[in-house]
């Protein structure tokens, strides 16, 4: 019952805002924020209960007797009704807290950021709908409800990315996001159906029981397909192309959806189905490989991007790759831990970037610079976020990020390990590149006048900065890896390996140092010949390795041509048909006209003429001429006599 309120409150806020938003004005924003804040409180309460051993759950039976086939070893007998519902375990509670707390702070921030926008209340309506959908997603105890939430967050993402739909770039980006994630979602749906067909249930507990410890042959393909959904939602290669374009949306949207929550849904899915993935090692392996590739790939591109939000977008992709790699390598707890900390500092980074954009009205690095003096709070909070993300002790990222290569190492994937270490270095490099160029040095564009943002925007920044510092501690050795133990009680507790910590810190420091040298001091360390080769690489990276162009050539153009052809044929057929119908109609009406004129009119006219004829004939009896009357009389007499028998 408490579980039901958690997503219902934001849903109610959505309904009110979408219907009455215009009249509520600024109140709509506070309504959404309050709804989510209350949900946050409820989530805390639920979390507290779960920590103390409770397992709140709520389910109801749906669709009666479905007659689903029973799979070997299915927990439920075949033919049972479909039971759907909500549940709360440790994983769910973690996600609940992340979504509600970070979400509330972002709602608060948006009050200031979106002030003055003509569709102010609708923005908050969409945010509330998104919150409700995301909460439903994490609370679901079965794949079907999860899928419902999955699709809904996809819809909200589309609505919010293209919120300023007057800009064609925004509309196109929304479309791209929706279509790309759709491809993934289709895979997820097919996988869901296959799982249901094989096991006869969609509930997680049922699925886990059905898969068992062994690795059934039928499990691999559905899990791969489910991972397709994850790849789409969490922007893994090759379905990552939508996330950078999604930066066309307002910055709070980028922060909430594309940094902290929606993209984390894919990670959550893998975590939720981890038991099934573990039973299909091939699929898990694929997850790890793709995660690693994504991490490296995106990090390289982020190093050469010039738009603040694009840098952060690729950074998100890269960090998601980290999480995927962790999960794929078997580090369930590590991956979720990183998700939590990443939510904090990535949201902070985005909100800070939003603050800069709100103040300076530009996003390009080339036009920014020297903002430290004018936007102290923003600069300092972003510094904290940058340090956290680079993994500097004792901030949050240090604990979560260093665990992931450790997991890879311990599970025997050295290649993955070294890739992740290098990527950590790149991560530190590009984030500090961003910081140095934006805040340090001198202003590059004299036209840019910056000022600090209002309190309603800076307070969330500070709060998130505090979170970025402290969020890692629950999972650190100081608190005896409390978070990991809660999340995955049966996993081996992670051991803090000092040399790994040193290695990743060193990588981070190298990255930061290089960034400082290059951008603060302007020293280029790389010698010329190497630089030439490097420039080529930079060029490729800055073109995002031409993936978008590839997709366009391979998929989109043929599809467009196909649809054009179909449209022509359709027009030809339908126009032809319609014209035919029209001609038939015309022909019919002409026939009818002929009939009307020659039969009906003819009849009517003939009748009139007949009457007139008879009348004119009859009239002749009444001439007024006496002699004629007499003649008629005489004729009558003759006739009567004839009839009477007088005949010659």
């Amino acid at each position, binding site marked *: 019952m408490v579980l039901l309120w958690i997503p219902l409150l934001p849903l109610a806020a959505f309904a009110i805002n979408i219907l009455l938003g215009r009249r509520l004005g600024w109140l709509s924003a506070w309504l959404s924020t309050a709804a989510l804040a209350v949900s946050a409180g409820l989530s805390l309460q639920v979390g507290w209960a779960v920590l103390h051993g409770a397992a709140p759950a709520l389910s109801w039976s749906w669709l009666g007797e479905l007659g689903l086939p029973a799979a070997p070893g299915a927990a439920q007998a075949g033919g049972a009704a479909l039971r759907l519902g909500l549940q709360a375990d440790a994983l769910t509670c973690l996600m609940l807290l992340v979504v509600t707390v970070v979400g509330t702070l972002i709602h608060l921030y948006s009050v200031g950021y979106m002030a003055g926008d003509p569709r102010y209340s609708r923005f908050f309506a969409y945010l509330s709908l998104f919150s409700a959908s995301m909460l439903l997603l994490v609370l679901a105890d079965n794949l079907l409800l999860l899928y419902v939430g999955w699709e809904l967050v996809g819809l909200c993402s589309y609505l919010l990315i293209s919120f300023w739909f007057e800009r064609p770039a925004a509309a196109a980006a929304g479309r791209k996001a929706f279509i790309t994630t759709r491809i993934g979602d289709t895979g997820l749906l097919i996988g869901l159906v296959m799982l249901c067909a094989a096991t006869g249930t969609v509930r997680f507990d049922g699925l886990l029981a059905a898969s068992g410890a062994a690795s059934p042959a039928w499990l691999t393909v559905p899990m791969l397909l489910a991972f397709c959904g994850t790849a789409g939602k969490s922007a893994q290669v090759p379905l990552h192309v939508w996330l950078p374009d999604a930066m066309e949306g307002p910055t709070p949207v980028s922060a909430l959806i594309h940094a902290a929550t929606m993209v984390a849904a894919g990670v959550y899915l893998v975590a939720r189905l981890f038991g099934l993935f573990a039973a299909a090692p091939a699929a898990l392996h694929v997850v790890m490989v793709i995660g690693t590739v994504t991490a490296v790939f995106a990090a390289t591109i982020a190093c050469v991007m010039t738009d603040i939000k694009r840098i952060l977008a690729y950074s998100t992709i890269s960090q998601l790759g980290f999480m995927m790699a962790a999960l794929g390598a078997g580090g369930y707890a590590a991956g979720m831990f990183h998700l939590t900390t990443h939510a904090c500092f990535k949201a902070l980074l985005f909100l800070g970037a939003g603050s800069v954009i709100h103040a300076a009205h530009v996003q390009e690095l080339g036009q920014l610079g020297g903002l430290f003096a004018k936007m102290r709070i923003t600069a300092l909070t972003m510094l904290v976020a940058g340090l956290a993300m680079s993994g500097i002790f004792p901030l949050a990222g240090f604990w979560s990020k260093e665990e992931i290569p450790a997991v890879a190492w311990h599970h025997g994937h050295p290649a993955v390990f070294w890739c992740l270490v290098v990527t950590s270095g790149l991560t530190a490099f590009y984030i500090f590149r961003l910081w140095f160029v934006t805040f340090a040095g001198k202003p590059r564009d004299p036209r840019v006048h910056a000022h600090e943002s209002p309190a309603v925007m800076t307070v969330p920044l500070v709060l998130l900065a505090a979170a970025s510092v402290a969020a890692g501690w629950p999972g650190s050795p100081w608190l005896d890896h409390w978070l990991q133990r809660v999340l995955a009680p049966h996993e081996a507790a992670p051991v803090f390996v000092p040399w790994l910590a040193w290695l990743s810190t060193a990588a981070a420091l190298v990255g930061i140092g290089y960034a400082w040298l290059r951008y603060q001091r302007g020293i280029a360390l790389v010698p010329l010949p190497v630089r030439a080769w490097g420039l080529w690489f930079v060029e490729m990276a800055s073109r995002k390795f031409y993936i978008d162009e590839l997709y366009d050539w391979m998929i989109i153009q043929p599809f467009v041509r196909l649809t054009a052809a179909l449209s022509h044929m359709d027009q030809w057929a339908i126009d032809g048909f319609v014209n035919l119908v029209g001609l038939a109609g015309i022909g019919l009406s002409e026939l009818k006209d002929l009939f009307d004129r020659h039969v009906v009119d003819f009849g009517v006219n003939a009748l009139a003429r007949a009457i007139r004829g008879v009348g004119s004939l009859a009239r002749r009896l009444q001439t007024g001429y006496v*002699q004629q009357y007499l*003649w008629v009389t*005489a*004729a009558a*007499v*003759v006739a009567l*006599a*004839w009839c009477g*028998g*007088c*005949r*010659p």
Partner: protein
Amino acid sequence: MVVLSAGVVLAGVATVSLRNLFHAALSLGLVLVGTAGLFLTLEAEFLAWTQLLIYVGAVLTLIVFAIMLTSGMGQGTLASASAHRARSAAVVALFWLVTVGGFSQISWPAASTTSPYTVPVLGQELLTTYLLPFEVISVVLLAAMVGAIVIGLAHVKGRATDPAGLPAAPGAAQAGAPRSGAD
């Protein structure tokens, strides 16, 4: 009798076909005279003379007067349309055929005795059996005279309608037409 019949018929034809009204009237006179002769052949002497006296003496004279008053003499009376004449002739012919055909099928008994009806006999009948019609006819004659006088009266100035009931023509509304008082 044959001669008389032929004469009568010819005169009758003349009466109905002559254009000049006066000549037609005169032909009528011939008819009347011929009829009188036929009466004589039928041994109805009183009737014959009465016919001559009344019909020829009075009625014919009256008609001639009327003709003269309405200037029918000079005026050529155009005959009616030929179609009209044709169909009238047709009807009439049919009637003749029907009638003659009708009574020719009847065989008449032979002529009876030769006891004519003399004047005293007629007088007797007139004043006994047929007294009422006799008186009535006197009244009718009186009424006819009075009626003719009334109808023939000249217009009195100011009367909206003619005594005959016809709407007054504008010209005749003034002092009586010059040809009034014919009777």
